[in-house]
């Protein structure tokens, strides 16, 4: 076609030739359409050569093993047959890891990531049932850095997670800060934590009781010797918005999402003998069996790496691989120490309460509360004692438990003496029974299972930074920005807990 066009242009000067060339052109087209059969195929073939080659290449790729093409029709809600990385658990940690994996891949479609989530309604997911707070006031530097990095991420969230032609992400971040109160007994811990936090770069300030009373006139400073207030990057936000922002962006980058339950793994075992003569089984996951909801149908997904981000149910997923089912005094006998723990949150209404200025207050008795919305509502909760842990087979709320919280609330904030409980809900912590801190890293015996779980109530606030750390671990082979090697599985094997020195 272009050839003819060129002729057309050069012949423009000579009018007669111009007419004749056009005539010939038209004549040829008429001829090709009606009369000869070999001509049009040849012309079209050369014109479309580029496209023909491309179609041929695609067909060849489909025919090769490793492609997704199957001659049979299959249920499209099944996950793909092959994926590079399977993330078990579609909570905020799982989707954060999926996003960062796609963010860090070096070439387009470099890794195929599949996120498997059991419950599309997220009815029992810890992420959405969380109070949504973020703070830097920890005692471990790793936790402080995780929070700071996550706050930086959330500040620039639209640079990271905005999708073209879609609404910008609005986390509804309330910058009210956390206010921790310490009694005489624990004031020294608060001071040590303060210096750790300042050293790590967190903006925290210590307040004496008089300063506290001046700042928060509604507080009763009886028994309070020291208070620690976070000045920046602390507050609370909407966890559902963060989860959806990660999910939307990750799906736009090509992550596969599947609603199903991982019910088992197929693995190969490599038995090796130690110097003392003990046998150790090294397992490698080959397939993850994903079962469809309400159905017996399942798809074995061939995968290279499995990330266990199943939150409160991570222990069960680890058991599917036999972690913890070996003889008691061996490494394979050490289970993943993560179990669900139920926590209650009560919504109370108090018209004369502290108002807009309320920080997220955590008292030394273990009671915490924060403002919720602008209508005089607050949400309050407390961590129960070890002996009084509620049972975890359901998410029913124990309203009697509020009787433990109310005296402390009323003592601390006199206005709360006349509050009314409006509603309540319960959610699970992915509670690490060993030391209540996250477990991040590979398992020593299962060579391709990574953990990102056990955060015991801090998973949501650390999720952006954890996602980045896991992506670095998987794709780069080691931690690059934040060193989370203190959170590896090794401490569980050597029985050396790293505990947060909280004042509660």
């Amino acid at each position, binding site marked *: 076609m272009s050839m003819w066009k060129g002729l057309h242009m050069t012949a423009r000067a000579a009018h007669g030739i111009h007419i004749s060339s056009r005539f010939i052109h038209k004549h040829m087209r008429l001829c090709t359409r009606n009369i000869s059969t070999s001509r049009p195929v040849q012309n079209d073939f050369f014109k479309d050569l580029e496209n023909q080659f491309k179609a041929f290449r695609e067909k060849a790729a489909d025919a090769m093993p490793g492609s997704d093409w199957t001659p049979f029709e299959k249920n499209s809600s099944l996950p793909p047959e092959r994926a590079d990385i399977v993330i078990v658990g579609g909570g905020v940690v799982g989707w954060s890891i999926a996003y960062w994996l796609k963010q860090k891949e070096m070439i387009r479609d470099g890794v195929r990531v599949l996120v498997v989530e059991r419950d599309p309604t997220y009815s029992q997911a810890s992420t959405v049932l969380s109070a949504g707070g973020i703070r830097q006031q920890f005692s471990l530097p790793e936790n402080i850095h995780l929070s700071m990095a996550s706050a930086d991420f959330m500040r620039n969230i639209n640079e990271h997670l905005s999708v073209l032609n879609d609404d910008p992400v609005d986390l509804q971040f309330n910058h009210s800060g956390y206010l921790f109160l310490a009694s005489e007994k624990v004031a020294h811990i608060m001071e040590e934590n303060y210096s750790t936090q300042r050293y790590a770069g967190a903006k925290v300030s210590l307040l004496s009781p008089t300063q506290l009373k001046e700042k928060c006139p509604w507080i009763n400073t009886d028994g309070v010797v020291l208070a620690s207030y976070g000045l920046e990057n602390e507050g609370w936000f909407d966890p559902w918005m963060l989860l959806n922002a990660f999910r939307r962006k990750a799906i736009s980058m090509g992550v596969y999402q599947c609603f199903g339950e991982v019910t088992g793994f197929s693995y190969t075992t490599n038995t090796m003998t130690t110097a003392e003569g003990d046998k150790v089984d090294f397992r490698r996951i080959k397939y993850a069996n994903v079962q469809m909801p309400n159905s017996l149908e399942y798809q074995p997904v061939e995968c290279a790496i499995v990330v266990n981000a199943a939150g409160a149910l991570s222990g069960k997923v680890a058991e599917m691989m036999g972690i913890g089912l070996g003889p008691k005094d061996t490494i394979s006998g050490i289970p993943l120490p993560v179990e669900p723990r139920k926590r209650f949150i009560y919504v109370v209404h108090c018209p004369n309460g502290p108002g*807009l200025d309320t920080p997220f207050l955590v008292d030394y008795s273990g009671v915490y509360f924060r403002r919720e919305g602008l209508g005089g509502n607050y949400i309050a909760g407390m961590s129960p004692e070890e002996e009084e842990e509620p049972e975890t087979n359901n998410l029913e709320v124990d309203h009697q438990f509020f009787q433990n919280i109310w005296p402390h609330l009323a003592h601390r904030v006199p206005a709360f003496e006349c509050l009314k409980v409006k509603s309540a809900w319960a959610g699970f912590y992915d509670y690490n029974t060993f030391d209540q801190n996250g477990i991040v890293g590979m398992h020593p015996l299962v060579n391709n299972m990574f953990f990102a779980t056990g955060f015991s109530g801090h998973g949501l606030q650390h999720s952006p930074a954890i996602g980045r750390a896991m992506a670095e671990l998987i794709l780069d082979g080691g931690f690059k920005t934040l060193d989370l090697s203190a959170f590896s599985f090794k401490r569980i094997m050597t029985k050396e807990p790293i505990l947060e020195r909280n004042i509660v």
Partner: protein
Amino acid sequence: MRQSCRQVTLLAAASRYWSSSPVAPPSKQSRLLLFLSQRFHDIETLLSWSSWFKNRGQSEWFRSDRRGKFSWDFMNHQDTSIEEVDVGNTLINYTGLENLVKQRGLRTLSVSGCAEVDDWFLSRLYMFQDTLEELDISNCPRISVGGLAALQKLRYTDQHGRK
């Protein structure tokens, strides 16, 4: 130096949508209005040389004139601290506050009409909690309740703001 500065300011007029701070140099003691209609990146670097910026004296505003030229008289006044800053209708954002960090005597801040001022910017204003008396955040479309909750950290301030 004047010529090169002029050229730099012309260059500065293009580009940098995400510009950090157009905040001006140090001001003087009583009534200083730094009125900036453009971004002056060279002045940003000058600001970071904190020893320059303490002046004593006048009660007028440093601003750029109609042609966008900024007088260099402020250089004559060193070693006084800025008291009032008006960065209205500029693209100042959270990172831009870096330049104001050392201004411990700031009394008035106006960010009216700034499109990039959001809740995170407000949460960073605790730096001036002891001295800030007036804060104008009118016409900033990106501020929400969460940011206003952060303003509790400012102790003596009257706040003027309208959506």
